[in-house]
């Protein structure tokens, strides 16, 4: 039988719908892959199928993973699906196929000798590490209307992963985190749960308008940051290794 490649958009709904179709038709053989629009690489002897995204399909797959493969595998797969790696869909599908073949499907993440499981594991770790990193280096600035605004430029879609952390930390603040690479917002209104917003045009001017005290506090922070270093120990290499230049773009102290 020819291998089937399911093509979808790189969104949560798109990916999980493609998984649904692939699972329905190819779970016995495992001869299927998932590719995304925009990063298609044609393979020989393949049949390409376009997926129609649909929230019902996506939910069904999510439910199935949660129920049969357990909480840990679900978390890993979900995190891996936030990666920008184009092979993630296929790896997730193959992991599901592998889980079906073993007795204890909820132990699937221990089977690291399986290349697909290993890949899901690695992708999830990469995304998780980036989340941790942005919890550290994200910087809010206070806008005129009192809203805290942070702009980040991560490699993977991590807004969803870091928003709960800031919700716990700043429950009574209005804040938003803008992922400029993937054009996603996490918006939090004081006292409420945060929400994910995408595809909204933003008013760039409004975001530049900072509050009166913002400049002063930024200056204080820069001053502190400068003073805290011990001159006799200074090492540019070490600083660069701990905090690579590419991450410093949106950090107040390096402006």
């Amino acid at each position, binding site marked *: 039988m020819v291998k089937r490649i399911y093509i979808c958009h790189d969104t949560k709904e798109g990916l999980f719908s493609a998984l649904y179709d692939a699972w329905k038709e190819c779970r016995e053989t495992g001869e299927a892959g998932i590719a995304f629009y925009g990063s298609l690489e044609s393979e020989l002897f393949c049949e390409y199928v376009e997926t129609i995204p649909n929230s019902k399909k996506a939910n069904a797959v999510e439910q199935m993973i949660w129920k049969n493969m357990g909480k840990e595998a679900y978390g890993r797969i979900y995190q891996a699906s936030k990666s920008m790696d184009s092979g993630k869909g296929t790896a997730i599908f193959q992991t599901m196929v592998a889980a079906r073949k073993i007795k204890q499907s909820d132990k699937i993440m221990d089977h690291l000798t399986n290349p697909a499981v290993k890949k899901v594991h690695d992708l999830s770790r990469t995304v998780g590490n980036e989340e941790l990193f942005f919890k550290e280096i994200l*910087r809010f*600035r206070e806008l005129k209307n009192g809203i805290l605004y942070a702009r980040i430029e991560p490699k993977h879609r991590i807004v969803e992963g870091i928003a709960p952390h800031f919700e716990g930390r700043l*429950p009574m603040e209005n804040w938003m985190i803008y992922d400029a690479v993937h054009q996603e917002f996490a918006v939090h209104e004081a006292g409420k749960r945060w929400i994910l917003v995408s595809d909204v045009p933003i008013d760039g001017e409004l975001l530049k308008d900072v509050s009166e005290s913002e400049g002063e506090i930024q200056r*204080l922070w820069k001053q502190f*940051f400068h003073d805290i*270093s011990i001159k006799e120990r200074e090492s540019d290499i070490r600083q660069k*290794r*701990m905090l690579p230049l590419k991450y410093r773009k949106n*950090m107040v102290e390096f402006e």
Partner: protein
Amino acid sequence: MVILEKQTNVRKTWGDIMKKELPGNVSSSVKRMDIFEKLHILTDAAKYDVACTSSGVERRGDGINMGNCEKAGICHSFSADGRCVSLLKILFTNECIYDCKYCVNRSSNDVVRATFTPEEICRLTMDFYRRNYIEGLFLSSGILKNPDYTMELIYTAIYKLRTEYHFRGYIHVKAIPGASPELIQKVGFLADRMSVNLELPTKESLHRLAPHKSRENILKPMRYVQNRMNENKEELALYRHAPKFVPAGQSTQMIVGATPETDYQIMRVSEALYEKFGLKRVFYSAFVNVNEDKALPMQREQGPPLLREHRLYQADWLLRYYKFKVDELLNEKNPNFNIFMDPKCNWAVQHLERFPVEINTADYNTLLRVPGIGYLSAGRIVKARKMGKVDFVDLKKMGVVLKRALYFITCNGKMLYPTRMEQDYIVRNLLDAKEKLPDSVRNMNYQQLSLFDDGGQGVWLHGQENLYLS
């Protein structure tokens, strides 16, 4: 609270502070400084303290007040010396009645003095925390008037921060040696971590360089915090919601290279602190000469003894995670660490009779002692070999550093390469494999080290043979 009235001129916003700034030079004792200047002075004075960890306590947000804590801690930035910036590390005041020879804030130094008000500390912490600059506050202080008075000031500041500003982030506070137990107890219920600096490893050195401090006064609060923490554990076992006393434990720090102590002496002290005082961490601070004083060693040409500091930290890990004892690593005859080789490798090449060990059968504690195998990979090995035989390829995936481990292990009875079990041969190969040193000490090459670096002993240990490679 009398103190507060004297100290604070409560000013509500930074804007007000700026407006009220006095022009021109007023003499330093009455000068009203703006917050920038204060922050500059009191950061500069606090930076020599090493600890900047925000780890050890997990506290979720309560849905109303600002702040939570993550068990592993969070570093928010890295300063120009490559050290992490996790907490707002400041002194309450840099005025000090003590005259410790190594300290930049000693009473005989003519430096500009400044004192924060509790209000200022709270506002700085909250404003920084809100913008995700920091994980919390690290508050230390010079000794103003007397230890109790100073401790009371610190207490006032963090009391305000916790109760008025309802801050739930991390707070690390210095316990002032000589302060009364009641005050330390009050502070301990508000802080996450407390620390008293041991400053110098021996009583004699302390007496010589910090004549106003005594070993007893330093150890007393340490012991008190330890006892109180143990009591608190029992309280918490009984009542789950009882207030927590110093939940992230206590730490201390020693200056390395200002006095003639050997590495052996220093590590013995650390070991005693871990075992007898239940400390979470002991930090080592390479001596930076900030004062010209005849009691201090001259500033060395290549800067602070960073390599020595690095070796001490390596050995410190061996004590805490690898079940080593100090007496195994060093002794009276060899009192200092080998500067060419890390302590674990050094121990292994001196105990070749114990190697090679078989990966598939050796117990966990034996695996821990193999160079190139960390405590994480040792755990992975033990887990993985239940499923099947482990081979060199698997070891690599588990994170074992084979270029160091290969001389000391066998997999299924075979070594990776045919290897002579001779000390010279192994030492030569290990040195060829180049140790990964921190970038700060990497710039020095071995030649430089052997000519100028006396292992950080300063001027006291002339001619003493510190290196042992045989």
